[in-house]
């Protein structure tokens, strides 16, 4: 007598819904021990995809519908009524398997083949032992706890890979077949410091780390991470008691992030990150506009070392201190190792464009509410003295030459509002003449420190910088839709165009080399110019939208900011490879 079990209903419920404790594909359902035959649909994980095939269980033996099995392997099963034979046939790779109900003898491509379990017929269907037939068809079949795992091409291959978890290597074992890789959940959990429990009755897998709980079932794509449903691209399975699953899914469910072979256990730092500066070859200082703070970031583990309650800090040349001006205009220096903050004097005038002296004992700044002066603050005495007090307003982009003898800045004069009346109640016009930004150079060794104009052209001038020999480069642009910026090099009193008509995203000088981020047809490229050889090299290209660059003064790494939907993230270009530091 045949009895239909509601296995299909159970399987579909698992396919559609989330795995819940107590929901099971109970193995004994299929392991009928009586003389009665039981039919059901048997859950199958085929190359990571879920399916069910008809099965017949009799005397503790499970047999599977030959036509269903054949279909999994892109083969056809036909019945030869005259000879009462079933034939599984595939054209490529070619194979012909002839089977008969009740016969242990089969023919494979015309040759004898012995079956340990004879096929059985039920209705029009032939039920067969799936394992040898799957292997004959070029794959592999393995059933455990009432679920079969099937490779339709090749056998299961064990592998081990080394992944970096927060910068430390861990070996993760896995099983691969049909170009799909499944990773040991035990190994992943161990690297996360999480515990794994596999319920023997229900096959439910539970991974716990602190308050985080991840639940999944071997016959479901759905994963439950702290009550939140996630979908896995491939269904997990259990083999010899070890759950295997899609690695990125488990990592993300545990709160981690993946970048290449790197796994950030607590996830990459989220939120807007800007203004990367190199503290040393392994540490970045980044600004966090979301909460007006800064972070020290270890680029090996990609984790935060410390948070600092100020943003847009200016790093000292040795990377040990950082300076900032608070909302009251007071100047502070923070020791990055000890986190000790020191106020420099009590001057509360507006200070912008902080620039460290080469010896790290002074800070130059644009000074005054109208940015009308240049001052220098002594870290030793706390005194702030004006160096240039020519009352010319709106100085910006202060730079100090590498030898510390010259200052460079830009001035864009204010426009003048003209009125029709003496009481100045009715605007007539805005006079914008003389408002073009110009570069000025100051010789700090001269007694009067008189600013000398370097330019007189009407173009915008940004990203000005000194080269090692006190020569100057800057990006020039005009307010013409058709014209693109140029990179200018001022040397020996003459101006030379290094790059013409390019969409220059950023230009920075580090160790006397000029780093330029360019955009061409949506591709962002970082190029490096060596003034000594007058040659350009390319550091790397990406389709990601680079918004700024910060080359390391310590090695050949380049930190960049990249536009994201929510703001900016920080990445590093290292040996041609782009590595995300935040997200």
């Amino acid at each position: 007598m045949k009895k239909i079990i509601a296995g299909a209903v159970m399987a579909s419920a698992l396919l559609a819904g989330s795995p819940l404790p107590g929901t099971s594909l109970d193995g004994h359902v299929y392991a009928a021990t009586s003389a009665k035959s039981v039919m059901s649909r048997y859950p199958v994980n085929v190359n990571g995809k879920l399916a069910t095939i008809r099965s017949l269980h009799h005397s503790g033996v499970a047999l599977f519908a030959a036509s269903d099995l054949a279909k999994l392997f892109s083969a056809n099963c036909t019945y030869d009524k005259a000879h009462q034979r079933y034939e599984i046939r595939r054209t490529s790779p070619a194979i012909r398997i002839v089977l008969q109900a009740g016969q242990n003898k089969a023919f494979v491509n015309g040759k004898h083949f012995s079956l340990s379990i004879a096929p059985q017929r039920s209705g029009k269907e032939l039920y067969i032992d799936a394992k040898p037939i799957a292997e004959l068809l070029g794959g592999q079949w393995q059933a455990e706890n009432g679920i079969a795992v099937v490779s339709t091409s090749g056998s299961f291959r064990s592998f081990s890979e080394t992944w970096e978890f927060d910068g430390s290597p861990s070996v993760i074992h896995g099983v691969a077949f049909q170009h799909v890789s499944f990773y040991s959940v035990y190994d992943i959990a161990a690297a996360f410091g999480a515990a794994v429990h596999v319920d023997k009755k229900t096959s439910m897998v539970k991974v716990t780390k602190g308050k985080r709980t991840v639940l999944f079932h071997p016959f479901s794509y759905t994963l439950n991470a702290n009550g939140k449903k996630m979908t896995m691209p491939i269904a997990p399975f259990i083999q010899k008691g070890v759950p295997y699953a899609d690695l990125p899914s488990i990592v993300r469910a545990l709160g981690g992030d993946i970048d290449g072979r790197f796994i950030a256990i607590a996830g990459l730092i989220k939120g807007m990150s800007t203004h990367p500066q190199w503290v040393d070859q392994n540490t970045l200082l980044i600004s966090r506009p979301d909460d007006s703070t800064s972070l020290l970031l270890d680029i090996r583990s990609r984790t935060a070392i410390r948070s600092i309650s100020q943003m847009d800090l200016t790093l000292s040349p040795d990377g040990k201190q950082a300076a900032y001006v608070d909302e009251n205009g007071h100047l502070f220096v923070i020791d990055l190792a000890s986190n000790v903050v020191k106020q420099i004097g009590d001057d509360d005038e507006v200070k912008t464009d902080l620039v460290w002296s080469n010896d790290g004992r002074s800070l130059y700044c644009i000074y005054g509410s109208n940015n009308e002066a240049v001052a220098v603050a002594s870290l030793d005495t706390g005194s702030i003295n004006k160096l240039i007090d020519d009352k010319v307003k709106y100085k910006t982009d202060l730079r100090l030459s590498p030898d510390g003898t010259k200052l460079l800045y830009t001035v864009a004069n204010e426009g003048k509002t003209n009125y029709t009346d003496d009481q100045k109640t009715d605007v007539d016009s805005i006079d914008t003449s003389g408002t073009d930004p110009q570069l000025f150079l100051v010789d700090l060794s001269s007694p009067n420190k008189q600013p000398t104009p370097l330019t007189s052209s009407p173009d915008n001038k940004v990203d000005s910088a000194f080269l090692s020999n006190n020569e100057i480069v800057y990006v020039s642009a005009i307010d013409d839709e058709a014209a693109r910026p140029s990179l200018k090099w001022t040397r020996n009193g003459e101006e030379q165009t290094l790059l013409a008509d390019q969409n220059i995203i950023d230009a920075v000088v580090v160790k006397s080399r000029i780093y330029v981020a360019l955009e061409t047809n949506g591709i962002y490229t970082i190029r490096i110019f060596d003034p000594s050889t007058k040659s350009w090299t390319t550091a790397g290209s990406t389709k990601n939208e680079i918004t700024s660059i910060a080359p390391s003064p310590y090695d050949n790494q380049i930190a960049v900011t990249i536009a994201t939907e929510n703001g900016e993230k920080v990445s590093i270009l290292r040996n041609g490879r782009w590595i995300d530091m935040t997200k």
Partner: protein
Amino acid sequence: MKRTTLWKRMAAAVLSSALLIGAAFTTQHRADAAEVSGKIVIAGSTALLPLTQQAAKEFKKSHPKVKIVVSGSSSIAGPQSVAKGVATIGACDWDATRAVGGFPAYKGLKAYKIAKIPFAVIVNKNNSVDNLSVQQIQDIYEGKITNWKQVGGKDEEIVVINRAKGSGTRVNFEDKIMDGHAIKTSGDNYKEVQKSGDMVNAVSSNPNAIGFVDLAYVKGGIKAVSINGVKATTANAASGKYVFYGYGYLLTKGEAKGADKAFINYILSKKFQNGSLKKLKFIPVK
């Protein structure tokens, strides 16, 4: 952040919701990935001048093809200049699309709220008075209190400094402090100045002067007095404990477009709002 349209993405949602124009604006932003070029002329409020100047400095780094000229005079010059077409953006300490303090509503302009501005009642740094009630300030500006000893200071005549008509700071002072009480605009000890900088100079150079200015200007030879015992700080203004504050607006003729839109978006971006804007003693609006 350098030359990019990134900040546009960030500010798009903010600006969109502020303008209640929904997703269309955001879409427009993202489609506007090409380089922005053109000339921006910003005229108006001197209270907002430090903010617009700083934003202009930063914006030019990311938008080298945009030329920006800033001219600070008075708030009323902002909407006037835009309405007349001599400036592309007007800076004003009130929403000039509505009639305020005797000034008409400017039709056809679009107002973008960019910052909360804490203002301060200021005295010379050497003045011993550190706190005044709203009532005392009203009485001083009405001419009812004329000597510092009447409010706990020295026996010296009070010199009242006011901003000229058209000043946004004056509009906010009349609105938030004077509350309908008329300022006595005559007498030997009454003086009007044109700009915020002039106000600072007038009070810092006269030990008996009293005036008002936005908090960003309070430094050097002047000090802010507490009002009703509450210190003039951005934190107190942000929480509402401190009563003397207003809002800064940028105005454009119709919806902001091109470089103007990009500039306003930059000011509304989280980076600027939480960065330079706060350091200049303004309070973010988002």
